[in-house]
């Protein structure tokens, strides 16, 4: 048959996802929305009464909220990795993941951005954190890691949105073609009147290349900065040089896992097996394995050197992590992040989608726990033994509620994305068809 028809079929099959929402879809959507609502209520309670309603036990001044922040920023990373880095490496399998991954990046960042504000003691003066000229004639402290966050995450969000949108333009033109009425107008506007002329394509490719080139170091820098939120302190367990690369790897690790978690059901439900093949999954599984190895390396080195250095603070901390209040979590983290992924050395398991899905879930859990352990256990055991936590930190319903709410928000956004935008980058798929 004619190539054009192949392309047409691709259009049809991929855009099929944008059809009328079914009952299942609506049910899930309703569920996630309720999560968001309840999360908001919890936050409002905290806003009114004070941060004390959360379970913080001094000296554990940071806990679930910051954990969520790091977690979601981490999730965001794989998006850029898959679309930008793999683009530079000209890895084919990228095309079948980049759209959902990029969407994920944007949404995850939207969620992540909330947490620094949620965890503030006085959220109503959050604007103190932004460098804008004010009547007080005050600026922010650019020497504080938290301000670096503002810049890094802000930049990252902007760039990701641009990247996402640029990737969408030609596809939007296709959607425009298939829609009628008001929808048509909307998509026409969004597609900026894209034609696909030679000139457009040439500049487009250039733009895409550059965006990829910009995004790649950005990915690294953003999570480095996040890691420095901790590494810049002098706290044992936080102040260590390996944090930057370790966090970046961890971020990509968790992000990739989340991509799998999202794409596996998506492919199943939207029947996209032709465009997302097992080979693709195998290659992404390799990334998962690789990053897991880096993370494990970091675990080993950190602990090993604590012992090597013979520094009382460090040693006590790592002893505490493994055998103290939070030992259960610690060992969960080891299992999920270091041991389970090792099974992916087996090709058979790499290609077993169901198994891969389970692993990805475990990794998500593991990485969330990892951040929690790093943050909380280090705080609970620092220099002055007098302030060592006399009782274990436990999140209250507020924290739990807000955390669930964040997941709710993420999935809500993702569900909306499924129905409003092409879930795969059609044009690129056509290129390789």
């Amino acid at each position: 048959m004619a190539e054009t028809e192949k392309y047409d079929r691709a259009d049809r099959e991929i855009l099929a996802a944008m059809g009328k929402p079914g009952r299942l879809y609506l049910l899930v959507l309703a569920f996630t929305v309720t999560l968001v609502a309840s999360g908001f209520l919890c936050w409002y309670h905290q806003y009114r009464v004070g941060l004390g309603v959360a379970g913080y036990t001094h000296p554990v001044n940071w806990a679930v909220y910051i954990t969520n922040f790091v977690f979601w920023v981490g999730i965001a990373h794989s998006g850029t990795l898959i679309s930008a880095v793999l683009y530079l490496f000209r890895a084919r399998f990228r095309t079948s993941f980049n759209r959902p991954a990029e969407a994920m990046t944007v949404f995850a960042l939207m969620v992540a951005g909330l947490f620094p504000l949620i965890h503030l003691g006085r959220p109503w003066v959050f604007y103190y954190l932004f460098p804008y000229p004010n009547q007080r004639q005050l600026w922010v402290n650019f020497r504080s890691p938290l301000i670096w966050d503002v810049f890094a995450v802000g930049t990252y969000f902007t760039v990701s949105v641009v990247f996402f949108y640029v990737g969408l333009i030609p596809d939007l033109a296709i959607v425009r073609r298939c829609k009628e009425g008001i929808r048509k107008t909307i998509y026409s506007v969004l597609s900026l009147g894209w034609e696909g002329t030679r000139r457009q394509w040439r500049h487009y490719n250039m733009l895409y290349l550059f965006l990829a080139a910009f995004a790649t170091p950005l990915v690294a820098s953003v999570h480095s900065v996040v890691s420095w939120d901790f590494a810049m302190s002098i706290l044992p367990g936080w102040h260590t040089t390996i944090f930057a690369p370790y966090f970046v790897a961890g971020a990509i690790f968790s992000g990739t896992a989340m991509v799998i978690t999202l794409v596996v059901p998506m492919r199943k439900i939207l029947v996209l097996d032709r465009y997302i093949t097992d080979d693709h999954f195998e290659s992404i599984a390799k990334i998962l394995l690789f990053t897991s190895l880096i993370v494990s390396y970091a675990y080993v080195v950190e602990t090993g050197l604590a012992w090597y250095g013979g520094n009382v603070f460090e040693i006590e901390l790592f002893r505490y992590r493994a055998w103290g209040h939070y030992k259960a979590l610690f060992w969960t983290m080891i299992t999920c992040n270091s041991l389970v992924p090792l099974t992916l050395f087996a090709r058979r398991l790499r290609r077993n989608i169901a198994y891969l899905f389970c692993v990805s879930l475990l990794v998500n859990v593991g990485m969330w726990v990892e951040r929690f352990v790093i943050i909380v256990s280090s705080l609970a055991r620092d220099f002055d033994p007098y302030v060592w936590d006399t009782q274990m930190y436990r999140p209250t319903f507020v924290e739990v509620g807000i955390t669930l709410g964040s997941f709710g928000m993420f999935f809500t956004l993702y569900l909306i994305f499924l129905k409003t935008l092409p879930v795969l980058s059609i044009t690129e798929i056509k290129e390789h068809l």
Partner: protein
Amino acid sequence: MERNLKKPAILLAVSGYFGVFLLITVALGFSWYRGGQAPDQPIAFPHTIHVSKLSLPCNFCHIYVDRSRHAGAPALETCMSCHRAIATEREEIRKLTRHYEEKRPVLWIRVYSLPEHVYFSHKRHVKAGVDCSECHGMVGAMKKIRRVGSLEMGWCVSCHRAKGAPRDCATCHK
């Protein structure tokens, strides 16, 4: 081609960012100088007469201005020392006398009020030779006292900058 594209790009980026800031600053700048409204006081005390006509020094009534952080309002005794005799027929003075006789202190409506977290000492400013009018304006020309200057941080700071006064946060923040 290249040259005439680079320039605008740079200009756009730099001036764009700072330009926005400039605008906001200017906008805020206006708000600082709009001053406050003039409330009706329980007794319509005319600074015009006392300051301009009689040219009484400020600390004739505000006795603590150079001794304490508070300028202090005059005790009715002080007022009466003159107004036992002077202008007794005026309605406002009658009010005053009534207050005095019934031993009811006068509750003026505060025109200049600072937030709780600010430490401000009239004494220090007076001793440093800051003229009352620099903050309180031409009181002598005001029938009713109204706030001059916003009392916002920026307002204090710009003066401190200009006069080389300390800009250590702890000088003013409790």
